């Protein structure tokens, strides 16, 4: 049915005028005024191009709609494991960054404290000259690369290996390395949680509705509709807790006590899967003896969850086993949070084991991930590093449980200050804002002889760089094929160009490629992205053309239930770990208190915890007017504080308070809530931008990193990001 007065697509005059890029596109298409441009826009054909999102690390598969040379909107690719047709708010909002007038439009070089433009060729030449001299004087291992993992991170690693440096870093030590280590020392690898088929799910600290994961949320909602019980353990009534049957506000930093209590009940009441445990684990007797004293009553005294609740939940999960699980976790409660995070992750893996759910339907399973093909023998393998990483990951006596592949990213400033690192690249990462203790981070990064930042905008880190190389946004560039969409069946996916770059920017791959050529390691990058992609797809039996047409393609066999030899020294699940014993760490999980705790005799003393909101990715999206508009409209930058604790301090909803820790101080408005454990205050992450170039976000809200000292957990080397006590006091707006 069509009507005469049918409302049609709105094109605002401002949308036409804003941003020289859009106007330039319109003009280049021969369209001169708004009326004709709008008329033309309505009737223009829409081109739909499958690709993957660059808005966070999930790399969701999208279909980008292009109209009149401009990206109009995105939709989720329904075939993709990771997002199954959905798109999150960041994904939609992130599109506008591409049209942001604050974008960097070409390579920049710092000259006498100011940035000046230069050509790509000149930038590559100068950077290469400086690096060659620095490495000649200091050794090849003094160069580093740090990135938030992207589709092309394997090429970044290859680049460092070609340079013979071990120093490739991810952001892991500020995010998830304790969780990974806990699982690795128990089951050999990090598994996934089969939320789609489980009957009982407990989620500890993880908030997939905020630190958003679309596929997991789809599974949770559908399983819940089918009768799954959901229990959320979190000091804060998280957005995932909204969906839960029960919310258990645990005292922050004591999740380990809850897990020990659950183990105690599962074992003493003989509720565990004895057959599974006897066949597939080592060290059960030691575990049984070790948890004898961790009664639910004991756990209640530590973690504030009633003993009866712990006992009941252990029985409920046992009744549902093996289709019962505790979510594998992420940053949340034990990714890189507390002194006890490694043992918390171990304990969590062990409770899953006692439920007999490892690699079982509805339990914890090793997802299928696409095995991308090698570049050799067509292209040679770089020689690789000559020395181990200087951060001490994997080295006995230093951080033996640390993740060598990730490195300890927040050690880069320390290594720079000690002269171990002289030059480096920061790509799709902003350590000045996302690492703890910014003063120390700034001092470290400024100590470098050469800092090159690959970023589309002038982030805090870019603002102190010697060179800034502007990276294209994902719709502007072809990139490496990707295997991020793992699951019950592996999928391969691809980022492909949807529009011509709006400015003189390049893809991450192309920048790595260009640098390699000038640095004398071009023989390891003697291929185009297309040639490399074809080689990597070859063993999967997928053509590049087919992949580009579909965006994601399933490959390989479907996952099947069943226990196989694990990547642990015993090949089994290690309830008791000889390796840990030899290294001097508790071989079975035992109670360890957090490093610091609030002073119970001081009404102003709180633990500062933090978490993500669905609308923001790290510090990357705070400057986005669409997303920051939501933060502003809904008061989402506020600090959460328990109503009862606040009233003792005379603090009302919306009042301004001052937070003070050992290293920092800052003012922020509060949200009074009943949905928070009284011992802590909660700060959303992603705010507190201090790059004055990012005008929308500048000095709005606070970052927990401003209060967090530089810590290295003594086993894993992670940041212990919630080991920080703050005092809270009301201040007047004029203070």
């Amino acid at each position, binding site marked *: 049915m069509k009507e005469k007065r049918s409302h049609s697509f709105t094109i605002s*005059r*401002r949308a036409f005028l804003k941003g020289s890029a859009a106007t330039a596109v319109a003009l280049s298409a021969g369209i001169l005024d708004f009326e004709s441009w709008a008329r033309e826009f309505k009737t223009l054909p829409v081109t739909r191009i499958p690709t993957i999102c660059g808005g966070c690390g999930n790399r969701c598969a999208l279909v980008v709609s292009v109209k009149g040379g401009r990206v109009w*909107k995105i939709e989720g690719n329904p075939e993709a494991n990771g997002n199954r047709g*959905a798109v999150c708010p960041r994904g939609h909002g992130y599109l506008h960054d591409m049209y942001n007038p604050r974008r960097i439009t070409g390579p920049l070089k710092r000259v006498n404290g100011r940035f000046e433009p230069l050509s790509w060729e000149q930038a590559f030449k100068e950077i290469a000259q400086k690096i060659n001299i620095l490495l000649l004087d200091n050794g090849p291992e003094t160069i580093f690369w740090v990135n938030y993992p992207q589709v092309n991170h394997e090429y970044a690693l290859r680049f460092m290996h070609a340079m013979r440096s071990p120093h490739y870093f991810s952001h892991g030590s500020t995010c998830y390395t304790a969780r990974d280590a806990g699982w690795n020392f128990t089951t050999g690898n990090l598994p996934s949680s089969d939320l789609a088929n489980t009957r009982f799910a407990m989620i500890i600290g993880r908030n997939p509705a905020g630190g958003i994961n679309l596929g997991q949320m789809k599974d949770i909602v559908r399983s819940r509709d089918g009768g799954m019980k959901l229990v959320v353990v979190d000091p804060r009534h998280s*957005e995932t807790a909204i969906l839960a049957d029960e919310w258990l*506000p645990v005292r922050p930093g004591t999740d380990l006590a809850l897990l020990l209590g659950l183990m105690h009940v599962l074992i003493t009441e003989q509720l565990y899967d004895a057959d599974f445990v006897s066949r597939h684990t080592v060290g059960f007797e030691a575990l049984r003896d070790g948890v004898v004293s961790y009664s639910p009553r004991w756990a209640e005294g530590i973690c504030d969850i009633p003993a009866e609740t712990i006992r009941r939940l252990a029985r409920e999960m046992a009744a549902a086993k093996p289709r019962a699980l505790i979510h594998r976790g992420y940053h949340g409660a034990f990714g890189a949070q507390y002194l006890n995070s490694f043992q918390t992750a171990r304990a969590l893996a062990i409770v899953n084991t006692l439920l007999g759910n490892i690699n079982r339907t509805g339990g914890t399973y090793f997802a299928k991930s696409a095995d991308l093909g090698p570049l050799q023998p067509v292209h040679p393998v770089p020689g690789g590093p000559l020395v181990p990483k200087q951060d001490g990951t994997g080295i006995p006596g230093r951080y033996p449980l640390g993740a060598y592949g990730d490195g300890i990213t927040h050690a880069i400033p320390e290594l720079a200050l000690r002269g171990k690192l002289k030059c480096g690249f920061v790509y799709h990462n902003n350590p000045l804002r996302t690492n703890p203790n910014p003063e120390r981070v700034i001092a470290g990064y400024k100590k470098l002889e050469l800092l090159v930042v690959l970023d589309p905008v002038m982030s805090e880190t870019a603002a102190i760089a010697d060179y800034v190389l502007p990276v294209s946004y994902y719709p502007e560039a072809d990139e490496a094929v990707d295997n991020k969409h793992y699951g019950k069946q592996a999928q391969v996916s691809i980022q492909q160009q949807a529009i011509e770059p709006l400015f003189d920017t390049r893809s991450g791959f192309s920048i790595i490629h260009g640098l390699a050529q000038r640095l004398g390691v071009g023989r390891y990058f003697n291929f185009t992205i297309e040639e490399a992609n074809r080689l990597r797809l070859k063993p999967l039996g997928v053509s590049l053309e087919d992949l580009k047409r579909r965006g994601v393609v399933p490959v390989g066999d479907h996952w099947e239930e069943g226990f196989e030899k694990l990547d642990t020294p015993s090949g089994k699940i290690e309830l008791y770990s000889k390796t840990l014993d030899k290294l001097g760490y508790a071989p079975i999980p035992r109670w360890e208190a957090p490093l610091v705790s609030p002073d119970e005799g001081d009404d102003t003393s709180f633990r500062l915890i933090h978490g993500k909101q669905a609308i923001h990715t790290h510090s990357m999206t705070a400057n986005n007017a669409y997303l920051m508009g939501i933060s502003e409209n809904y008061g989402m930058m506020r600090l959460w504080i328990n109503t009862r604790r606040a009233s003792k301090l005379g603090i009302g909803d919306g009042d301004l308070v001052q937070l003070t820790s050992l290293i920092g101080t800052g003012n922020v408005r509060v949200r009074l809530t009943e949905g*928070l454990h009284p011992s802590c205050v909660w700060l959303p992450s992603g705010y507190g931008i201090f790059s004055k170039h990012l005008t929308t976000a500048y000095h709005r809200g606070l970052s927990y990193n401003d209060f967090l000292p530089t810590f290295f957990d003594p086993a894993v080397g992670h940041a212990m990001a919630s080991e920080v006590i703050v005092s809270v006091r009301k201040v007047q707006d004029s203070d």
Partner: protein
Amino acid sequence: MARYGMIIDLTKCVGCHACRVACQNQNGLSDTEAFNFLEEREYGTFPDVHREFQPMQCQHCDNPPCVRVCPTGASYKRSDGVVLVNEKECIGCKYCMAACPYGARIIMKEGYVAKCTFCVSFVEDGEVPACVTTCMNDVRMFGDLDDPGSDISRYVARHRNRLHRLKEELNTRPRIYYRKA
């Protein structure tokens, strides 16, 4: 004759705001203009707490007060039930904004009033509104309430007792039905 309607399942919304930004893109809105809103509520006392997000937008009333007060006829209801604003006839007097009991209308910087359109120009081409497809939790369902075979009609038949409309006492007869647990 189609009669479009929507279900919003309050037991599933976690307040992520994807609907708002998807709608802004679909409809070419600026960052300060939005047709979707969220109302958040917190119930209970620690540790027995519940929170709820209620998505808000034009309710596409069968008896729309905004249409009655419009002096120029810019606000109108189509025969398929979709309530729209003809921006060319709108003089920006904001009577409709005052009359709308749901606060669903906004004034654009150009001076005309706008709001959720149920993405009707796309729906006519066989698409589904952007707020529906983007949602990870399948909070919304959109369809033809006059077609007894449609998903939405079957849903209404099955869950009738759990569905309510906002401010029913005003006799606005919205075409958006909310589901509570």
